[in-house]
Structures are given as structure tokens and as C-alpha cells.
């Protein structure tokens, strides 16, 4: 187990290195000139040159990347061009919120998605099944911005059950998690139904029935753990998808996560922030994949960590 983890961590580091290199290269090639942005509208060419030199942006690519890496190792992600703060500080201050939202969202989508998929598979072919599948497609097809606003309007503005955005208590977490979760729930419901249908055909389910077990025991004890395996593999993938939706949801609910940071940075080509957020999210994705691989053997003992 330890050995496995060690090996996987080294692999993960290599992947992160790859991500950093590609991202750095792409940003290097981007035509927008960060120095011009820093220098402002009334800067003289002299000032522009000065700033370029100070930031080391006049150096060749390899040198710039090498310097970045060296600083990265000591945990220094540089200073934002536009915000002028330490990127590390910016990310650290926003990361907990994003992580919390991620946990909430994943919980939501698993709870919603898995139960929908399960019911649909059991009731296969009935009206319930069809309704649930339509619902899951609505979840996947609905633009998150609209879903978020709608939830906010109904549950926060009209019913006042939850605050209109913000961050702090569990009540703040519900609506954003739900908004994020609705999309994922659609995916999970669809996948769960598919794999559940498969599992319900297996011999061991017949054995369980032959033992005279209650329906619930058959479904939850025998079928579910088998059907959930492909879903577990999704969690890593899910974090990637999650990073896409986070921007919208965070801004609707005023959630102080890294999505907003990233979006603003992209709009303004604030390269150090883009780099930092990229690395952090890549790390999360890699970690998610690792986690999925580590959880799998606990659910299916046949799977060996190799």
C-alpha cells in the first residue's frame, strides 16, 4: 500500500510537471502582453521595458520556466500581475471554500444521482424510469447559471429558507452544492442505471434472491456495491468537470472559491494566477484519480493495487 502510494505520487508529480510545462508554454505564446497591462495606459516605452526586465519577462522561455520551477519548489507561485498579491496567499484564502463546495456538490450528486439511477434501473421500462431519465437529462442540459439563479430565487428570495449567497454556515452551502450537484446527478443517474441493469442480471443477485433476502438487502447490499464501481472511477473525472462549473456557481452565490479567481485571471491574462490555479486544480484532479483508485479495492476486494 505504502509502496503503491509512493509510486503513484511520483507519477502524479510527473503529470503535474507536464501540466506546468504545457500551461507555461501556452501562456508564453499568448499574444496579450502582461507588461503593458501592468504599466497602464499612460506608460512610456521606457517604463514598459523597466517592468519587463524586473519581472524577468525579457528572458528566454527556458530561463523563465526554470525560474518558475525553482520558486515553485519552495511553494512560491509568484505575485499576481494585476492584483499584486502573492498568488499562494490568494489561492490559500480561496481554496477551502472551493473544497467545501466540491464536497457538498459531490455529496449532492451522489445522493441524487445514485438514488435516481437505482430506482430507474429497478423500475426499468416503467413510467417512473422514463420520468427519472428525462429528469436526469434536464439536469445535464440545464445551464448552471439559470439553475443557480432559479434555486436562489425560489429558495432564498421567495421562501427565505437559505441566505442569498455568501459563505459561512451549512445553510450557505446547500444551494450552491445543489446547483453543482444537479449536473453531476444527471450523469451519475444515467451511469448508475446502466451499470445497475447489468448487475441485476448477474448470478449472485439470483443467489441472493434464492436466499430469500428482502428486496432492500438485495439492492443495497448485493447489487449496489457492484454497480457503484464504475461510478467510483468517475470521481476523478468528476473533479475535472467540476472545475468547469465552479466559475459560474461561485459567482451566482458569491462563493469565495478559486473559480472566480481563475475566471478573472483569464479575462485579464493574469498569468501567475492562471498558472497557480491550473496547478492546484491539476493537483486536485490527480488526487481525485488516486483517491478513486484507492477506494476501489475497499469496495471490490478483487481489485489489487498495482
Amino acid at each position, binding site marked *: 500500500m505504502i509502496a503503491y502510494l509512493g509510486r503513484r505520487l511520483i*507519477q502524479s508529480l510527473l503529470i503535474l510537471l507536464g501540466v506546468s510545462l504545457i*500551461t507555461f508554454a501556452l501562456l508564453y*505564446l*499568448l499574444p496579450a502582453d502582461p507588461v503593458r497591462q501592468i504599466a497602464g495606459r499612460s506608460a512610456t516605452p521606457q517604463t514598459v521595458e523597466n517592468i519587463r526586465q524586473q519581472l524577468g519577462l525579457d528572458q528566454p522561455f527556458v530561463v523563465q520556466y526554470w525560474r518558475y520551477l525553482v520558486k515553485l519548489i519552495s511553494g512560491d507561485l509568484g505575485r499576481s500581475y494585476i492584483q499584486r498579491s502573492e498568488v499562494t496567499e490568494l489561492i490559500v484564502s480561496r481554496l477551502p471554500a472551493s473544497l467545501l463546495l466540491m464536497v457538498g456538490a459531490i455529496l449532492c450528486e451522489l445522493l441524487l444521482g445514485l438514488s435516481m439511477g437505482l430506482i430507474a434501473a429497478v423500475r426499468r*421500462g416503467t413510467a417512473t424510469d422514463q420520468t427519472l*431519465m428525462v429528469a436526469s437529462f434536464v439536469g445535464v*442540459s440545464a445551464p448552471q447559471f439559470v439553475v443557480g439563479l432559479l434555486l436562489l430565487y425560489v429558495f432564498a428570495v421567495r421562501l427565505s429558507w437559505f441566505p442569498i449567497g455568501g459563505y459561512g454556515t451549512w445553510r450557505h452551502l446547500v444551494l450552491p452544492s445543489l446547483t453543482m450537484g444537479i449536473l453531476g446527478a444527471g450523469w451519475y443517474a*444515467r451511469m448508475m442505471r446502466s451499470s445497475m441493469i447489468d448487475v441485476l442480471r448477474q448470478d449472485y443477485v439470483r443467489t441472493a434472491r434464492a436466499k430469500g433476502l428482502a428486496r432492500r438487502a438485495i439492492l443495497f447490499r448485493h447489487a449496489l456495491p457492484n454497480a457503484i464501481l464504475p461510478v467510483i472511477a468517475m470521481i476523478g473525472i468528476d473533479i*475535472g468537470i467540476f472545475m468547469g462549473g465552479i466559475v459560474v456557481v461561485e459567482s451566482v452565490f458569491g462563493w469565495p472559491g478559486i473559480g472566480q479567481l481563475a475566471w478573472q485571471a483569464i479575462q485579464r491574462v493574469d498569468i501567475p494566477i492562471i498558472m497557480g490555479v491550473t496547478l492546484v486544480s491539476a493537483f486536485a484532479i490527480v488526487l481525485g*484519480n488516486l483517491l478513486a483508485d484507492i477506494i476501489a479495492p475497499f469496495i471490490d476486494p478483487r481489485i489489487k493495487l498495482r
Partner: protein
Amino acid sequence: MPVKPRAGVWRRLVRRRLALLGLVIVAIVVAGAVLAPWLTGYDPNEQMFDGLTIDGSPLPPDAKFWLGTDLLGRDLLTRILYGARTSLIIGIVANGVALLIGTLVGVVAGYFRGWIGSALMRFTDLMMAFPALLLAICLAAVFEPSLWIVAMVIALVNWVQTARVIYTETSSLAEREFIDAERTIGAGAPRILFRHILPHLLPTIIVWGTLGISTTVLLEATLSFLGIGVQPPTASWGNIIFENQTYFQAAPWLVFFPGAAILALALAFNLIGDALRDILDPTQRGRA
């Protein structure tokens, strides 16, 4: 007893009510896209003087503008019809290509375990950890924004998840004995991969393919916004929603109708896919 001719997949498909419904919807969308100029009297990009109220608000659905007008006074129905062209290309072609690449990579990596497999999977991991949006922005900066660029980017970005799922499934399929049996009769890798492994992956491919339709159509809008996709005034379902989403209370029709179109298309393919999955899975024979 004479050998009965095999009932064609197509014939069995149209015999199912729901699948037929799906086919009809797809046919309507495709026909709408192709025949748009004949189906509507408006130009999709014409900002009509009488398409806005005096204080600049869009018009709700009425006898003249069946689905209402948008914020520039253009006929929404016409824009949805023309937008279908873009969205079909994204939802079906780009999504299809992504599915194809993902399946190919996943199958090859899952079947050939050696260095090819590891190399492909490490590359997939890298791509997965790499932010798609950034790639999109950089491409936007390099290329002239166009539908084909956005289609390419979507394909390039969306294959990764499919590849990972297909990889897992292929590696377990490759362990199955019937694959060994195929090897002993001299079947080469292409035959095993395409004739024997691929059909088993079909349910997964269908699930990912149909879900991908909505996500890619919506992703196209995000990319257009960042300047990489079709540029205004070209309509697509995604960007009609995206442009108007803040107006969902003031002018709900601007979000509802294109949203319904995306949903209908995705659902239609899902219905067809579901039926296909049953038809092509012999163990499901006998199911109505």
C-alpha cells in the same frame, strides 16, 4: 426449418415506440436546420425595428414572432432553426469525434498493455489534469475563431473522460476467455478490437455519447464567449442561452426555448441509444 432472415437493426428500431419518437425528433431537428430558409420568413440576423418595444425590451411569443424576439429584436424561432446547424455540428460531429478518439485511445490502451498502453494512459491523465479552458483560449488567440475550431477544441478536450472509462472496461474485457478463444483461431488485434471488444462497450459509449450532446452544446457557448467559437451574430443554441441567461426572469422564452431544443435533441438520442443498446444486446431479446 428454413433459416429466417435477420430482422434489420433499423426495422427493429422503428418498431419501438420510444425509439421512433427519438428518430422523429432528430429528423425534425435536422430538417429544421437544413430547411430553415424555407421554414421561416425572417433572416436570423435581422434586427427588426418592430422586434423590440420602444424602450428596448424583447417581445414575448405572439402571432407574429412565434417564439418571441431576442434582445436585438431578432426572431427567436428563426435563430433557433439556424442555430440548429451549429449545434448539430457540435453536439453530433464534435461530440462524436471526441467519443471516437476517446474510445479508440481507451480500447487501444486497454488492450495493448505494454508501453503503448501506459504511454496512452499517462497522456490521458495529463490531458485530464490540464485545464481545457486554457487550451481553448490559447487556440483562440492563435486561430481565427470559427465553428470548426470550436468543434476541434471540443473534440480535443472531451475525449479524455471517455478514454478513461473505456480503458477500464476494455482492460477487464481483454481478460475474458472469449478473447483468448479469438486469438487461438488466429484473429488479429484489429478484428478482436472492433468485432469483439467494441460491441461490448456499446452501452458505455451510448451513455457517454448521449450525455455528451448537452454538455458539448453548452460548452460551445462558453468557448464562443471566450472568442473561440462561432462569433455573433451566428446563432447556436448554446450561445442563445448564454447571451440571454441573465434575462431568464425578464424574458424567460429566450432561455426556455433553446434549452428545450438542447434537451429534446439529447433525449432523442438517448431514446434511440437506449433502444439500440437493447437491440444490439442479444441477452435482452424478448424485451418489448
